[in-house]
């Protein structure tokens, strides 16, 4: 992948802001859905679609594309908004989120929306499918990489760890997992509900190469992902520390925003804050 220039970085920041605005608009239109996770993963998704993954929005079935899996399907609004903002479909379609007949189902479905790599929502299943894709790529000597975005709470699922074992057994260095480490889940803090720490040590002991970074710092995330994807012989995990609700101050760090959308007034506040932030990014450049 090419080096990220400072101009490129600014563009990614602007995209992340666009992605966040798309999330707020689509959630408002839907009247249900998850806010905190999509917002906190906007920087990661902007970096992935805008710089890190090999893909072609005009040819979503391109056989040699990188596979980007979203294991935690409930944060679909960030994927949809990123796809729209990177040219997969018109941004207006975001307003159909969760509505009858939409391609943007409440939890993403591969068969309905080209570019979605797998149907997800039931937690803990994405990495296992990523293991299969990465294994298949090796069998056919294909060069594509498999990226799997996971939530931290789905590390409470047994199947996820079956996949971690398997990725290590088969030395799948073409597999990169990203953990949205925002420490929240529906019922509260992950460390209260079912402690995951020390998460990095767990992965290390399962023979994965572990990286940690600030998941809301695009430059840092890109630099970390570049180091991760250079690793040979082992799968890699990037623990991306994020602030739930990032970018909307009244949502930041509040777990109650995990599973609900903003109302009209809250959406207006959020959008005005994001518009202001966007001006800041542009002015800085």
């Amino acid at each position, binding site marked *: 992948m090419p080096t990220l220039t400072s101009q490129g970085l600014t563009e990614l920041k602007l995209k992340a802001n666009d992605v966040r605005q798309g999330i707020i608009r689509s959630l408002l239109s839907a009247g249900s859905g998850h806010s905190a996770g999509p917002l906190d993963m906007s920087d990661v998704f902007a970096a992935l679609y805008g710089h890190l993954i090999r893909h072609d929005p005009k040819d979503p079935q391109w056989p040699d594309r990188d596979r980007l899996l979203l294991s935690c399907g409930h944060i679909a609004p960030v994927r949809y908004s990123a796809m729209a903002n990177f040219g997969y479909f018109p941004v207006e379609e975001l307003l159909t989120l969760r509505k009858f007949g939409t391609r943007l189902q409440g939890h993403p479905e591969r068969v309905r929306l080209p570019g979605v790599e797998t149907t997800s*929502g039931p937690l803990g*299943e994405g990495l296992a*499918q*990523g*293991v299969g*894709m990465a*294994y*298949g790529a090796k069998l056919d000597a294909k060069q594509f990489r498999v990226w799997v975005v996971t939530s931290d709470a789905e590390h409470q699922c047994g199947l996820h760890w079956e*996949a971690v074992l*398997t990725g290590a057994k088969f030395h799948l260095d073409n597999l990169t997992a990203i953990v949205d480490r925002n420490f929240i889940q529906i019922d509260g803090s992950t460390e209260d509900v079912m402690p995951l720490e020390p998460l990095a040590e767990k992965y290390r002991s399962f023979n994965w190469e572990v990286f940690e970074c600030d998941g809301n710092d695009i430059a840092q995330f890109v630099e970390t992902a570049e180091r991760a994807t250079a690793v040979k012989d082992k799968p890699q995990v990037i623990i991306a520390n994020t602030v739930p609700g990032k970018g909307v101050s009244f949502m930041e760090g509040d777990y109650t925003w995990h599973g609900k959308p903003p109302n009209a007034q809250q959406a207006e506040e959020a959008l005005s804050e994001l518009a202001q932030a966007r001006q800041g990014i542009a002015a800085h450049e």
Partner: protein
Amino acid sequence: MHLLDYRAGDLKQVPTRNGFGEGLIEAGTLDRNVLGICADLSESTRFEGFKKAHPDQYIEIGVSEQLLVAMAGGLASVGKIPWIASYAMFNPGRSWEQVRTIMALNETNVKIAGAHAGVSVGPDGATHQAIEDIAIMRVIPHMTVVVPCDSVQTKKATLALSARWGPAYLRFGREKSAVFTTDETPFEIGKAQIFREGSDVAIVACGILVYNALLAADALSRNDGIECRVVNNHTVKPMDEAAIVDAAERCGTIVTVEEHQKHAGMGSRVAEILAQRRPVPIEFVGVEDTFGQSGDPVELIEYYGMGVSAIEEAARRAYARKSK
């Protein structure tokens, strides 16, 4: 139908799982994208031959049945044709939600081989006797469900499902059972087969109990003068509705036979079809809402009411109800 004489006492006894093993080796030669993924049961699911013949197409993942389905889904989505095998109790028993989401809703070309199905697993006992698997698989949209009647047909079904796109479940057993079909016996997914003609009662069966159904039909003809049509209803989904309706019209009454709970199994599907299209009296042979236990396979089949005499009795009841 090119059947062997099932009345002869000298039929070869071969487990249906052997047919799966043989079919898979051939499928793997015909198409290198055919894979075998094993969850620590290579000998008993009959993966061993495939492993030897196609080591590059064989993947061992240990005791992880949910992963079995999910990893296979990933492999299928990059063009592979994975067969995943475990005991039916664990796959699809343990992995049902993954089967529904990753195989069916996600439309991936994954094939499940459900081994050791039914009470005829024998001594392992109830924990290992899948008698609910047809129910949980036939209810899933897009799924194909096939329950072949002997090892020769299991081989044909393995090859046919490998060559046909779509998520599928192939159910077979552990114990040796009579081989009465031949290489010449036709087999087509979704096409029920009339193995014996008769117009008094239609016995619609699947799996190794088709053999018992044939023996029962023979005895009924000899002793009671009741002539049974015996239908090998190997494809539970999509079921051959025309064949079921035709059997009801011709015979006026039906007996269904399966090594499964009576609730929600193959027979229930037959009843769903006939209730709408051609209501006739139906008797069900299967397990009556209970679990199995350890024992000799033949003993268990008898105890749980699926032996030859139980089928005969069901046919007599059906015949009597029709005549009322």
